[in-house]
């Protein structure tokens, strides 16, 4: 029985039966499960992503530290997760290069490798609208892994990228044949052709067997199931970078205003800095007394410089403690120990990144971009702590 409830099939079989009932009353009196080939997750842990057909959101409120368990990394895809045999998968690099080349996955692993812990966030990562939203609901389209792969610059050198190449197309091997145009500079800077995540091969949902990984850039550009890179002297203006993943800037709505200031921003690669308090947060509750306010903060433009927390609805701000390591373009954990007197209040966090960018309020974003919540929306989010200890999201008015 003990062995059973710790396995995946055991979980299924026992559905509806209280797991607790099956356990020995005293675990010190009964030999446990012997060592195995693959570890398990406790049957008492019910942490899951919230899926729609096209995406699933990471349960930020249930996480600890900065690494996202690979099977709880958010998903976003435009035609499902393809099933790919790594022995058959190849990456073609061509276009403005001296020597077009084809790499097998094994070829890619032979090159010098690089690893970095960095976040990946969908630029559509903000939702609002009702009080009963958790961090997962509000901005669960961000996750963090240690990514390992070959630097794209290494492949650029191998193929001999020509000096007139200014953009490249990255194309996926999914049924959307996902494509994005990327400035060549990013390829020389820090782009990775990744084949591993958190110590093991990429998960299928994250691009197995090979994906592009562009640190700090909107998630969609880190094309998964990467099959082709074409060097070009201009962007390709794919559907994803025109009809999708573009956002209004001040006064743009309604669309098709023939004159006036309405514009849409394109190629908004950098992820603006964001922070969110993940505890206390809906649906958890708190008690009067000492509370460690916890959250994560990150920026696509570098390191987190500072996180501030307010426990009085934004009237005053205190510096939060940042948990080392504070890495470049990485989720950084913050915390602030607070003695709650039991009176209703609002708690908020705001991050400042290395460039001096301070996470804006929702109204500042509306003022700068018009009143549509669209891509790259990173407002300060507030949690109302009610006197009964319940915690509610405070959506914009």
């Amino acid at each position, binding site marked *: 029985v003990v062995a059973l409830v710790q396995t995946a099939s055991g979980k299924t079989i026992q559905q509806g039966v209280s797991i607790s009932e099956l356990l020995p009353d005293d675990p010190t009196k009964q030999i446990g499960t012997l060592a195995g080939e693959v570890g398990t997750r406790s049957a008492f842990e019910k942490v899951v992503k919230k899926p729609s057909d096209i995406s699933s959101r990471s349960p930020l409120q249930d996480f600890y530290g900065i690494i996202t368990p690979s099977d709880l990394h958010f998903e976003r895809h*435009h*035609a499902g997760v393809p099933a790919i045999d790594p022995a058959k998968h190849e990456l*073609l*690099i*061509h276009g403005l290069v001296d020597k*077009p*080349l*084809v*790499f*097998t996955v094994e*070829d*890619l692993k*032979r*090159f*010098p490798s690089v690893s970095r812990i960095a976040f990946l966030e969908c630029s559509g990562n903000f939702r609002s609208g009702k009080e009963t939203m958790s961090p997962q609901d509000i901005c669960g389209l961000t996750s963090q892994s240690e990514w390992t792969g070959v630097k794209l610059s*290494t492949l650029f*050198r*191998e193929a001999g990228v020509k000096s007139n190449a200014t953009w490249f*197309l990255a*194309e996926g091997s999914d*049924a*959307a*044949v996902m*494509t994005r145009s990327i400035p060549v500079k990013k390829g020389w800077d820090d782009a990775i052709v990744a084949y591993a995540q958190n110590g093991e091969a990429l998960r299928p949902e994250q691009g197995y067997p090979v994906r592009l990984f562009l640190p700090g850039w909107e998630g969609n550009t880190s094309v998964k199931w990467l*099959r*082709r890179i*074409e060097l*070009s002297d*201009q962007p*390709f*203006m*794919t*559907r994803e970078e*025109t*009809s999708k993943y*573009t956002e209004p*800037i001040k006064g*743009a*709505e*309604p*669309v*098709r205003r023939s004159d006036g200031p309405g*514009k*849409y*921003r*394109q*190629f*908004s*690669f*950098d992820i603006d800095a964001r922070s969110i308090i993940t505890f206390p947060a809906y649906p958890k509750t708190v008690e009067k007394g000492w509370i460690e306010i916890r959250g994560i903060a990150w920026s696509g433009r*570098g390191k987190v410089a500072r996180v501030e927390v307010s426990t009085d609805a934004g009237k005053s701000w205190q510096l939060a403690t940042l948990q080392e390591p504070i890495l470049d373009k990485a989720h950084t954990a913050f915390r602030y120990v607070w003695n709650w007197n039991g009176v209703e209040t609002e708690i908020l966090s705001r991050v400042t990144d290395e*460039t*001096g*960018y*301070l996470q804006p309020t929702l109204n500042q*974003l509306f*003022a*700068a*971009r018009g009143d*549509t919540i669209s891509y790259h929306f990173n407002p300060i989010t507030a949690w109302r702590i009610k006197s009964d200890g319940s915690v509610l999201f405070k959506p914009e008015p």
Partner: protein
Amino acid sequence: PIAKVDTLPTHFGFGRPATAAEIARLDIDVRPDGKGLPAGEGQVLTGKQIFAAKCAACHGTGGVDGPNGSLVTTTNPGRKRPEKTIGNYWPYATTVFDYIRRAMPFSQPGSLTNDEVYHLTAYLLQANGIIDEKTVINAQTLPRVVMPAQKLFVPDDRKGGSEIK
């Protein structure tokens, strides 16, 4: 002796040269200047028929109000904001060809012939009021179509720092 001896070579010699044939098989993208467009051409009326058969179930009759979103611009006073469509939000006509060929119909991606894609492109441009019924769409004409939304798009100029943009 302790020293860093090996340095990275420019070429490791991994991978194999790509042949023209295998590049051609994968190189399906189409750029705004028309690079990548195949031979063939499309007619609005043929496109209309294909659309009714293969696309309307998801994108609505005439490309309006389907379960997977409108492709054709309409003025609907009931909506707070007009739906974003090819007519009012797509800056390049070549993207219509590229996207349909690679990804549509959603349940049978990659199943259309180049001519079918040309026909559908012609039809969708006409339905959005961008070309007339007689315009033939092919590798020469498509890149020359100027889209209403093109002037709406500006490149990102955020640079970090204190400014909120």
